[in-house]
């Protein structure tokens, strides 16, 4: 039998080029969607920080009533959703991406501002809203533990959402405020859950372990 001729060797080259173009277009397309997501986080962060900042000022300068349900809803609305989006951005762009780090730092500030405001509401309005500070870590060695803690905190939050606020903070975030926070609460570099600034948990095996301390 004679050797068979190839249909057209150039066709292989063209197929490789077309495949590469489609491949990179789709990768780019997914990055474009991620970029939209990034923009969305930015668009959510600005108004919420503005609301918290505005209400706190109005309270300290003019003695505005901060005990209404409306105030609480206004300053808390998109907080959890922002956290979810930032988590996705970390996966998409990587934890070391400067854009993500910047948004995370901003989100950390917004959360801590919210945390302080909730403490103020508790004090001034005689309320007992619980707060959980979840210090997670994206480091390889701590990833499983962080995910495990985060996963169990989610149902705890949903079961008690009327009376509980959950803040997620990257323990390895390179910012002064995070360093101060760690010093204040005597926290190391391992993932940790802190309830109402009192109870610390490095591992949670059942939701009851946390819920028994809720006010």
């Amino acid at each position: 039998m004679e050797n068979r001729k190839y249909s057209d060797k150039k066709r292989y080259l063209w197929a490789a080029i077309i495949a590469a173009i489609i491949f990179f277009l789709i990768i780019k397309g997914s990055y474009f969607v991620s970029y939209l997501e990034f923009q969305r986080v930015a668009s959510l962060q600005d108004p919420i920080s503005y609301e918290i900042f505005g209400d706190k000022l109005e309270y300290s300068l003019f003695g505005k009533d901060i005990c209404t349900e409306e105030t609480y809803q206004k300053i808390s609305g998109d907080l959890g959703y922002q956290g979810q989006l930032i988590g996705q951005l970390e996966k998409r762009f990587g934890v070391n991406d400067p854009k993500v780090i910047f948004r995370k730092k901003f989100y950390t500030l917004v959360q801590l501002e919210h945390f302080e405001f909730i403490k103020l509401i508790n004090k001034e309005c005689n309320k007992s809203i619980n707060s959980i500070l979840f210090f997670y870590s994206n480091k390889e060695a701590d990833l499983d533990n962080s995910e495990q803690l985060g996963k169990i905190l989610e149902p705890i939050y949903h079961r008690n959402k009327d009376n509980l606020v959950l803040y997620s903070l990257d323990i390895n975030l390179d910012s002064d405020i995070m360093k101060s926070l760690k010093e204040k609460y005597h926290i190391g570099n391992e993932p940790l859950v802190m309830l109402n600034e009192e109870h610390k948990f490095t591992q949670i095996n059942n939701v009851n372990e946390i819920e028994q301390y809720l006010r």
Partner: protein
Amino acid sequence: MSLMSTVIYISIYIGLFTISFYVLSMIAAKKKIVPEYKFEELPKTSILIAMFNEEKTIKKTIESALNLKYPKGKLELIIIDDGSKDKSLSIAKKFEGIRKGIRVRVLHQENTGKGGALNAGLKIATGEIIVSMDADTYVEKNSLSAMNRFFKKPEVMCVTPSMIPYKPKGAIQRLQHAEYLLGIFLRSAFASVNAEHIAPGAFSSYRKSFFDKYGGYEEGNITEDLEVTFRIQYNGYEIENCPEALVYTVAPTKFKEILIQRRRWYSGLIHNTIKYRQMFSRKYGDLGTFVLPIAWISIFFSVFFLFYMVIKGVLSIISEISFLMSINFYFGGYLQFNKYLLERIFFTYLADPVILFFLLFVGMMFFYARYATKRIGKTGNFSLSLFVFLILYPILFGFWWVMTLVYSLFNKKVVWR
């Protein structure tokens, strides 16, 4: 990037490359001028129908063969009963003689297997062209004449039709409906680079001189049709495809039936690939260096992903159970819908390249199926079939291969019926 992600992206790129190559080849093949017989020039043809316990379908099969539009006096029908235990033989005997101008002969022999039955038919066939037809296959009137026109080119030793299941119902047949439609596209793509390597034994035409020169069907081979196809390619001849020639097969309806069928097909593919392994070389052009290796690479990836999914699935079930225990089986959190649900779905899925690639491949499959229905002129409800296919096929394809490999490793015997 993890090892798994790397494997996923490599397989995606190979998939894109393969699709691009076949689409380019099909565009190029459209410009190719192929010599064709006119209707009255069509060569004399013998249709061989091997049957074994086919009392439910044989009557309709014979009738469909007798209704074929073909030049007068140039068609004969040879029915070989391979030791049926039911009424198949008596039903076939009723057609013996001259029917609608076609000579019908019925042979009976002890059970030898399909290859042996077809060889018995070959011995008495007088046609220049041989058609092997399954006893549960129905054919459109114009299919045979459309196929046999390609035999004008002396190098063409086989012509394949378009196969689809007969009146598909239920999930298993719907799945096959979509699979056969995609097969129509693939067969055209393979033919465009002269690399068709699977001619359906249910209804394919062969030049009898090939059997005279290289021997008849291999007896004992569980996929004797595949063996002949490989042999044709191995000896350097051509196989043409005629997408317009529509043939219906009665597809399995039950999970166990299709598993047995696939185990036979895949075992046969392994056996015949080993037998003709020399074809994996540059000497065989596109077939040896691209089409056959890619076919095996896609099988490898399917089995690999199935294993991965099963292991991952089992691990996540264990982890999920332990998690549900830790939250006292509280499901409220999963039922929380907020105003951002659609937005979250959009960001979660469309920002993931693998999902975008998956959607692209789904789009391509839709295009393949559309191409097939356009060529055969029958649309049917292929969207539903495609939906069933997308859900079930990725898992079943890997599962069938795993079962086949297990059977092959433990030397379990696989038979044609």
